[in-house]
């Protein structure tokens, strides 16, 4: 089963440092509606990876597979050495605590303030109140929202909501940070700030996978770039740029 449709994959020996591994992964949302096709990707611990590709090429779908928001139709996904298909349902929340996620549509809780939204990421792992009331304002300060702790999401601008989502994703220092278009609603200056933050987080050996359309960022960081097109990996470059066509 793990080999279905994976004829094109070359398997590296599974190492200790392997964080995310996709083997011959395909995803059909419905019959005949293929979002990913025969994707093989290995990401080692501490890597910083950009996923690029046109709109609808399967970037978000790939990230959703890593958090087990979706299950692959074929192939296997391993995260931190564990095959997600074999992960029992009650373990899924624990996986997600180790995989921080900045969602493309933010996914903030509408009935919680900025502070409470970010604190929620710590509350689920049972952090004591003292830690929360110290760390949350700190991280919100980092993303430039130090003044807006008591606002509700619908009282924020698009970019501010996006930054709350970013703060929530790494407030609990996850092993892996997935960021889906985290700068889509941010001006270049703020984007640079966020990228510095991601870079700093990455230096503490957190694995970062970021789907993006921002070629200025990709080009300036010169990190590994994986390009998807129509659900297939068409490029995997160690020190890549956004794209040849642009």
């Amino acid at each position: 089963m793990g080999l279905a449709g994976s004829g094109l994959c070359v398997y590296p020996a599974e190492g200790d440092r392997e964080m995310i591994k996709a083997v011959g992964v395909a995803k059909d949302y419905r019959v005949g509606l293929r979002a990913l096709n025969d994707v093989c990707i290995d990401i080692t611990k501490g890597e910083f990876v950009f996923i690029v590709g046109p709109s609808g090429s399967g970037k978000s779908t790939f990230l959703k597979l890593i958090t087990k928001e979706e299950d692959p139709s074929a192939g296997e996904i391993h995260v931190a050495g564990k095959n997600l298909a074999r992960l029992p349902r009650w373990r899924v929340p624990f996986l997600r605590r180790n995989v921080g996620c900045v969602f493309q549509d933010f996914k903030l809780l509408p009935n919680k303030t900025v502070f409470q939204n970010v604190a929620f990421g710590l509350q689920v792992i049972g952090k004591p109140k003292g830690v929360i009331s110290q760390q949350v304002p700190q991280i919100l300060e980092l993303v430039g929202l130090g003044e807006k702790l008591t606002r509700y999401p619908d009282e924020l601008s698009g970019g501010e909501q996006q930054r709350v989502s970013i703060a929530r994703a790494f407030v609990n220092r996850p092993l892996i940070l997935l960021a889906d278009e985290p700068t889509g609603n941010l001006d270049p200056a703020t984007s640079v700030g966020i990228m510095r933050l991601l870079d700093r987080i990455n230096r503490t050996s957190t694995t970062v996978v970021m789907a993006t359309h921002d070629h200025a960022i990709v080009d300036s960081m010169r990190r590994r770039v994986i390009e998807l097109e129509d659900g297939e990996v068409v490029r995997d470059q160690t020190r890549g740029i956004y794209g040849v066509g642009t």
Partner: protein
Amino acid sequence: MRIRYFLAETVNNLRRNALMAIAATSTVAISLLLLGGVQILGMIVGNITDGWEARIEISGYLRSNATSGEVRDLEADLAQMPEVEEVIYVSERQALEEYRSDFEDDPALYEGLRVGDLPASLRIALTDARYTEEVATRIEGAPGLDDVEFGGGLVRRLLQVNSLLRSITFVLSVILMVAAAALIANTIRLGIYARRDEIGIMKLVGATNWFIRIPFMLEGLVAAFAGALIAVGIVAGANAVLFSRIGDAVPILSSAFSFSTEEMVTMLGALIGVGALVGLVGSAMAMRRFLEV
């Protein structure tokens, strides 16, 4: 720490979703009020039928020439029967007085009567109205006894009607219990449906099902409990204020509308219990399908 989080969360959610909290509370209140109403109806029917049955007695009319020895023998005979609860001797004078007080509104009816016109009698109360016929035939024709009276076929019919009435109120309260539960569950389900996205987000951020579920269940519990308190308050108030008035205004109904404190407290306690339980379980059940993310 967890507990403090859950409580804070519950309070926050109730405040931010006031509309839903109010809807749930008022639905619970209305549903339990209806349920309480049927319970009261059941209690009234119980009181009435009990009253009726208690009033079913056998009257053994004595010959005017019955000797006191005959009467004493008869009394002793009856007293030893297990079905007989009490035997009361009603003298000719007492019979006349009772008749007078029964018809005190119509002096014309008793004007011409004097002591001796109405016979003395033994009034026999039974442990259960079911034995009426049996006991009546057993003493019929005893020495000193002129005539034995009781409702006859009427008693049988009355007993039938009573048991029917009791079954009807029982069935009604079961139906209402189910209806109340369904109504409350519906409201809670809709309330949670309105917040399905929220539940999905919590799951994606790594919250376990129980971590998400508990505040929602506490919310359901608080809303349902508040609704139950309102319902109980109204029922208890109606009991204290209204029912005693009805009893005063229409004396014939006063026994039907008087409930012992104990049965009232049991009933109201049950209402609160049902409300809280449905709130708690309803929330948990309603969440199930939204927790599968």
